[in-house]
C-alpha cells in the first residue's frame, strides 16, 4: 500500500522500520526480517530531502539508511560510523547530514570530502536541530550541559548553559539532559532531565534556566512541544505522559495508557494529537484536549523512535482505496468521497501504466465502477475546486485534460461511459 499515506513512521530496536496508517488501521514493515541483526537497531530518525518524503534512519552499527516513501524502499546506505556509541541525533542541513554519537563526535557529512567535526563532550543523550535556523543544533547529555552549536562555526558553542545553584544542602545538582527541543519563533530551548526536571533556557537573558519544574519521580526520557508552543508533553521511564505548561510551570494533564518506558513523543504540528511509542511495543495516539486515547497499535518489537507526518486532513482520506465504490447509480450523490481518492487513483495509474494486472485487481475490488479507457474512476461527485487541487499534484497533462473533460460530463449527467 502507499507508503506515503502512512501517518507515523516508527523505528524499532530490532531494526525494522514500520509505517502506520492510522486511518486504515494498518501497520506495515518496510524492512526484510531475514537480513536483520540486533546491531541494526534504529537509534535516531529524521526527515530527509524533501521533508516528509524521505526518512533517514541511524542504526547502532553506524550506518545511516535513507528510505524513500515514494518508492517504498531503502535507497541509500551511508556508513557514518565515527566515534563510539549509538547515534544520538540525526539532522539534515543544506544537503549534508549532521550526526552525533554518544561519545560526543558531531560530524557534518557532505558529498565532497569537506567534513566538519565538532567535539561536544562525552555522554551525549540527544542532539536536535532548530527548525527555523537549520545550522544550529543543541546537544546535551549525562554530565554534559546543554550547548547550542552552529555548524559553520567551529570554535565552540554559541551558547553553553550554566548549572543551577547548589541545592538546599549546598550540594552540586547533577546534570543529565535527556531531551532537548527548540521553541519555534524564538531562541529559547526546553530540556528534560533524567532527574525529572524540565527547564527552559533563554540564551538572550541568562545562562541559567529561566524556568524549572519537576514532574514525577522517574527520569524523563522524551519531550515534545505542542503546536501552540506554550506547553510540552513529557514521557518518563514509568510510562507516564504529562502535559506541562511552560508559562507557569504547572502540570496541565496526564495522558494515560502507556505501560512501559516512553521512548519518543511527538505532537502533531496542527492537530491536537500526540503520538508516543515505548518499550511496551505499542504506539499510542492521544487527543490532547480530550485526554482520550484515539489509536493504539500493537507493533511487535520494542519501539525506539517515531516520526509524525504533518498532514492534517485525515478525514478526507477516510476509507481505504478498496472501498471507494459505489453503490450502483443511485441518487445519493452526496457520497462525497473526496478528491484525494480520485487523484490517488490517477497517480496509481501513472505508476502502473502498463501493469494491467494491477488494474484488473482494482476492478475486481470495486465491481460497479467503470473503466474508461485506461483510467479507473468511480461514481463520485467532484468538488468545485478540484481543478485547483489538481495543480498541486503531479499528474501529467494528458490525464489532467481527460479528468477535466470527464468533470464536465459528470456535472451534466451521472457517470456514463
Amino acid at each position, binding site marked *: 500500500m502507499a507508503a506515503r499515506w502512512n501517518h507515523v513512521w516508527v523505528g524499532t530496536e*530490532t531494526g525494522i522500520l514500520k509505517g502506520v496508517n492510522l486511518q486504515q488501521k494498518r501497520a506495515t514493515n518496510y524492512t526484510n526480517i531475514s537480513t536483520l541483526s540486533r546491531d541494526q537497531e534504529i537509534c535516531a530518525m529524521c526527515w530527509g530531502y524533501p521533508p516528509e518524503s524521505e526518512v533517514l534512519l541511524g542504526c547502532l552499527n553506524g550506518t545511516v539508511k535513507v528510505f524513500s516513501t515514494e518508492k517504498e524502499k531503502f535507497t541509500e546506505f551511508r556508513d557514518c560510523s565515527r566515534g563510539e556509541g549509538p547515534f544520538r541525533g540525526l539532522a539534515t542541513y543544506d544537503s549534508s547530514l549532521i550526526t552525533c554519537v554518544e561519545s560526543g563526535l558531531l560530524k557534518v557529512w557532505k558529498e565532497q570530502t569537506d567534513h566538519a567535526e565538532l567535539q561536544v563532550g562525552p555522554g551525549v543523550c540527544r542532539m536536535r536541530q532548530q527548525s527555523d535556523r537549520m545550522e544550529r543544533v543543541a546537544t546535551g547529555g549525562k554530565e554534559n550541559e546543554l550547548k547550542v552549536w552552529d555548524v559553520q562555526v567551529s570554535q565552540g558553542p554559541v551558547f553553553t548553559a550554566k548549572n543551577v545553584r547548589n541545592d538546599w544542602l549546598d550540594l552540586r545538582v547533577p546534570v543529565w539532559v535527556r531531551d532537548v527541543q527548540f521553541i519555534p519563533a524564538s531562541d529559547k530551548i526546553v530540556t528534560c532531565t533524567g532527574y525529572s526536571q524540565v527547564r527552559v533556557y533563554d540564551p538572550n537573558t541568562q545562562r541559567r534556566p529561566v524556568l524549572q519544574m519537576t514532574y514525577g519521580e*522517574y527520569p524523563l526520557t522524551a519531550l515534545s512541544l505542542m503546536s501552540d508552543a506554550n506547553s510540552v508533553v513529557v514521557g518518563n521511564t514509568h*510510562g507516564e505522559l504529562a502535559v506541562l505548561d511552560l508559562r507557569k510551570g504547572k502540570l496541565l494533564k496526564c495522558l494515560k495508557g502507556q*505501560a*512501559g518506558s516512553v521512548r519518543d513523543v511527538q505532537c502533531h504540528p496542527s492537530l491536537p494529537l500526540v503520538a508516543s511509542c515505548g518499550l511496551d*511495543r505499542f504506539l499510542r495516539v492521544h487527543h490532547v484536549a480530550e485526554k482520550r486515547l484515539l489509536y493504539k497499535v500493537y507493533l511487535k518489537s*520494542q519501539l525506539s523512535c517515531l516520526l509524525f507526518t504533518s498532514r492534517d486532513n485525515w478525514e478526507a482520506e477516510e476509507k481505504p482505496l478498496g472501498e471507494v465504490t459505489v453503490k450502483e447509480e443511485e441518487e445519493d450523490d452526496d457520497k462525497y468521497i473526496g478528491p484525494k481518492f480520485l487523484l490517488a487513483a490517477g497517480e496509481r495509474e501513472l505508476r502502473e501504466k502498463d501493469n494491467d494486472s494491477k488494474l484488473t485487481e482494482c476492478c475486481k475490488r470495486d465491481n460497479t465502477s467503470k473503466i474508461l479507457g485506461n483510467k479507473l474512476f468511480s461514481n463520485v461527485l467532484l468538488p468545485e475546486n478540484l481543478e485547483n487541487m489538481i495543480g498541486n499534484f503531479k499528474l501529467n497533462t494528458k490525464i489532467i485534460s481527460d479528468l477535466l473533460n470527464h468533470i464536465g460530463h459528470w456535472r451534466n449527467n451521472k457517470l456514463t461511459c
Partner: protein
Amino acid sequence: MGPKREVRKRPEPEPEPEAEAEPQFPPHFNVSEIKNKQRRQMMYQRLRQAKRKEQLAAKKKRQKEREALGDKAPPKPVPKTIENQRVYDETVVDPNDEEVAFDEATDEFSSYFNRETSPKILITTSDRPRGRTVRLCEQLSKVMPNSHVYYRRGLALKKVIPQCIARGFTDLLVINEDRKIPNGLIISHLPNGPTVHFKMSNARLSKELKRRGKEPTEHVPEVILNNFSTRLGHTIGRMFASLFPHDPHFRGRQVVTFHNQRDYIFFRFHRYIFQNEKRVGLQELGPRFTLKLRSLQKGTFDSKYGEYEWVHKRHEMDTSRRKFHL
C-alpha cells in the same frame, strides 16, 4: 409464629410475559424496605427458599426433557468462566510470527537458549531475614540446581551485581521479606538482562505441606510453563526457563511447574510417578508460592533510573475482570 407472616404475598422477581394483559400488577416490592429486622430476615429467607425451589424445579424439568430427547438432545451449553470470557489480547504471540521469533532469538535470553551458558544462581534476601525466609531460601536452592545462598549483609544490590557478574553468575534472586514473611521476589538476569519484580504470596515451606514426599534429590528437574501466551508472558516464561539447566534428569522424576492463571503464577515442585499409561501419582516436595508480576525492567536492577518495559498500574489495567496481561 403467625403474626410474623406478612399478609402480602412474596414479591415476584420479574413480571409475567403477559404483563400488559394484567392491569393489576403488584407493585415492585423489595425485601429491604421492611424496617423490622426479624420480619425482614424471615421474608428474605422465604424469598431465597422459593427461588431455590424454582431453580430445582427448572433443573428437573430440563433433565427430563434431556432424557426424553435422548440422542437428539442439544449439547450441553458450556458455562461461562472468566478464562472463557477473556478479553481478546492482541499481544498474544502467534507461533508463526517471524518478527517475534527474531526478537526472541536475539534477546537477552538467547545465550541460554542457544546453549551457550548454563545457569548459576545467587539467592539472597532483603536485609536481616527471619526464619521463614531463610528456610525458604534453603529449600529453593535445593529445587534449583547450581544455586548458592548468601546472607545479605546490608549490601546494596547495585554493588552486588557487578561482583556477581565477575564471578560468573547468570541470575540473581532476591526474596524480600516483610514482617517475618516473604512477600516479594526480584529476579535479575545478570549480564545485562531484564529484572522482574513479583509480589509473592502464600509461601509455604516443605514441612507445612500435607502428603509430601521425602527430600528432593540432586537430579535436575523438568520445567513446565503453563499459559504464558502474550508477549509479556513469553518474556517471563523464558526468564523462568533460564533459571534451570537444560537437560533434565528424567530418572529423577522431579518437575517444577510455573502455572499462570489470571495473571497469578503458581510455583509447585512435585515428584511424579506413572502408575500406568493414564494415571500419574504426584508427591509435592518443595516449597510452593504464588507470584504476581509487578514490573519488568530492562537492564539489571535499577529501580530509580532504569527503563521499565512493563509496569503494573492498578487503576488503568485492572478495570476489567476479564482482561489479563500475562
